[in-house]
């Protein structure tokens, strides 16, 4: 077993469709300084910086860390950038965990960001496809998740319907009302979702996340610093990641095995046997509404094919037994490179008791999940209020 590692401070910018008062390094700095301040630290107090963002083409700057990281005030100093697609925010937090767990560094600032309004987001996403293979037919993320959602609906019809996806969107947008950082903070109804224009069927506009500008940061430290700086640190008790190839037999987008395996690994490390019962709150990466149901199944928060029943039962509502996306989730804000770290931050804040108006009472153990690539990268992080 490795030495204990905790999140001791978090910081987020407000997520908006266009942040027009600050440039990319400045929004990264804003989140970074907020996290440092939350931990009672100054820029010079950390030993290293880990930075994460999704495709460079979003902001049009290659090796963006060279430009951006100096804004975090540790220059010259150790900086490393992680880039794993949609999972990158979580991969960055996990890299921060290993910076400390290895014994190489004691206190690390992990920051993830995206400023989608500077460029053309769907172009950036379409450029992820193999130019020799499927790039010409693909269409950013919606087409791929359209295929995934259709496969899921076909598999479980009539037990999962398009209305179930709409119910997820309604729940998460309602949860976002209590999150001061969320971008979309207006209640919607199932009828609104169902009548919104089609994007990549079965996905309709209100099944889809927005595009956002924003950054998120966490201060990660070893035990001594954590106990000194933070009354209630969020300990990393389970970490799992798994990659898979989309070009192998039996790829199942409706029940992605990389997610199942990442979860198994994290649960094993965290000694969790019955996730649905032992977890108090979960933040899952639902860039599109149906994905929340798909991930809940793959994470074992409900049984296979039980996604529709889960959202109908109210179990995943704020006042349910296992609230999912109390923050409003990705459907309420999606600065892509930061989104997976936001899941970690929101999970950490729940166990730190700092989630404010969307705090889940008695949250001792929280899960953060993310997906990336062509539905092929998965991360699962478990935070607990005790080691």
């Amino acid at each position: 077993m490795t030495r204990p590692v905790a999140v001791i401070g978090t910081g987020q910018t407000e997520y908006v469709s266009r942040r027009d008062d600050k440039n990319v390094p400045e929004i990264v700095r804003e989140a970074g300084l907020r996290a440092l301040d939350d931990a009672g630290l100054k820029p010079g107090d950390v030993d290293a910086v880990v930075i994460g963002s999704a495709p460079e083409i979003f902001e049009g700057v290659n090796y963006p860390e060279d430009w951006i990281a100096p804004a975090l005030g540790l220059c010259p100093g150790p900086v490393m950038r992680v880039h794993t697609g949609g999972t990158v925010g979580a991969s960055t937090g996990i890299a921060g965990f290993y910076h400390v767990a290895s014994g190489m560094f004691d206190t690390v600032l992990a920051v993830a960001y995206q400023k989608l309004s500077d460029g053309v987001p769907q172009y950036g996403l379409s450029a992820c496809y193999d130019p020799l293979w499927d790039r010409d037919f693909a269409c950013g993320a919606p087409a791929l998740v359209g295929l995934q959602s259709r496969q899921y609906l076909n598999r479980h019809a009539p037990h999962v319907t398009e209305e179930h996806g709409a119910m997820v969107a309604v729940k998460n947008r309602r949860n976002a009302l209590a999150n001061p950082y969320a971008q979309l903070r207006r209640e919607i109804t199932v009828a609104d979702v169902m009548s919104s224009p089609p994007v990549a069927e079965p996905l309709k506009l209100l099944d889809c996340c927005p595009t956002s500008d924003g950054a998120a940061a966490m201060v990660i430290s070893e035990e001594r610093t954590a106990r000194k700086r933070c009354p209630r640190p969020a300990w990393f008790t389970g970490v799992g990641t798994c990659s898979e190839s989309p070009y192998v037999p039996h790829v199942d987008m409706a029940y992605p095995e990389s997610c199942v395996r990442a979860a198994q690994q994290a649960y094993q490390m965290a000694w969790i046997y019955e996730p649905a019962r032992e977890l108090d709150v979960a933040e899952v990466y639902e860039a599109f509404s149906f994905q929340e149901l798909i991930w809940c199944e793959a994470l074992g928060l409900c049984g296979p094919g039980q996604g529709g029943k889960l959202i109908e039962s109210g179990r995943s509502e704020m006042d349910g037994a296992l609230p999912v996306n109390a923050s409003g989730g990705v459907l309420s804000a999606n600065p892509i490179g930061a989104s997976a770290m936001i899941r970690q931050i929101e999970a950490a804040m729940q166990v730190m008791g700092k989630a404010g108006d969307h705090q889940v009472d008695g949250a001792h153990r929280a899960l953060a999940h993310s997906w990336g690539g062509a539905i092929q990268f998965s991360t699962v992080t478990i935070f607990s209020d005790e080691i």
Partner: protein
Amino acid sequence: MLEAVQPPGGDIVKRVTGTLDIPYRFSYGAYYDRFFREMRDNKRIVGLACPKCGAVLLPPRPYCGFCYTPVDEWVELSDEGELLTWTVVHLPFIGQSTEPPYIYAFIMLDGADVQFPHILGEVEPGEVTPGMRVKAVWAEERTGTLHDIKYFRPV
């Protein structure tokens, strides 16, 4: 904090615009070369059979992504197959080769174990059903890309 130096009269510059344009020449490599020449010259779709796990793989790679075994046994696949899943794309985007709305689909060709990505034609979105049989409609002019197939149509 910066009042002292605000330029009198003029607003600050809120944005700077620019274009990033990088041309590429992507190597086909020996495997894509073989695959696309079969499409171009012979209207034939070929896959690779893994000698260890037996899977018939696409797109062409020198290894099996599942068991990491070298592969070089080419097998002919049918240009007909079964619809795995589909989506009707309504969103326009830069670089799109087909005007929306169009049906983007994953097809399991007969003889293959990995999905083939393409679009559907000669069918309305409402008529598409899970597991539907579809067949390639080949383009007259073929140059060695996936566009050598115009689309897949219902059988």
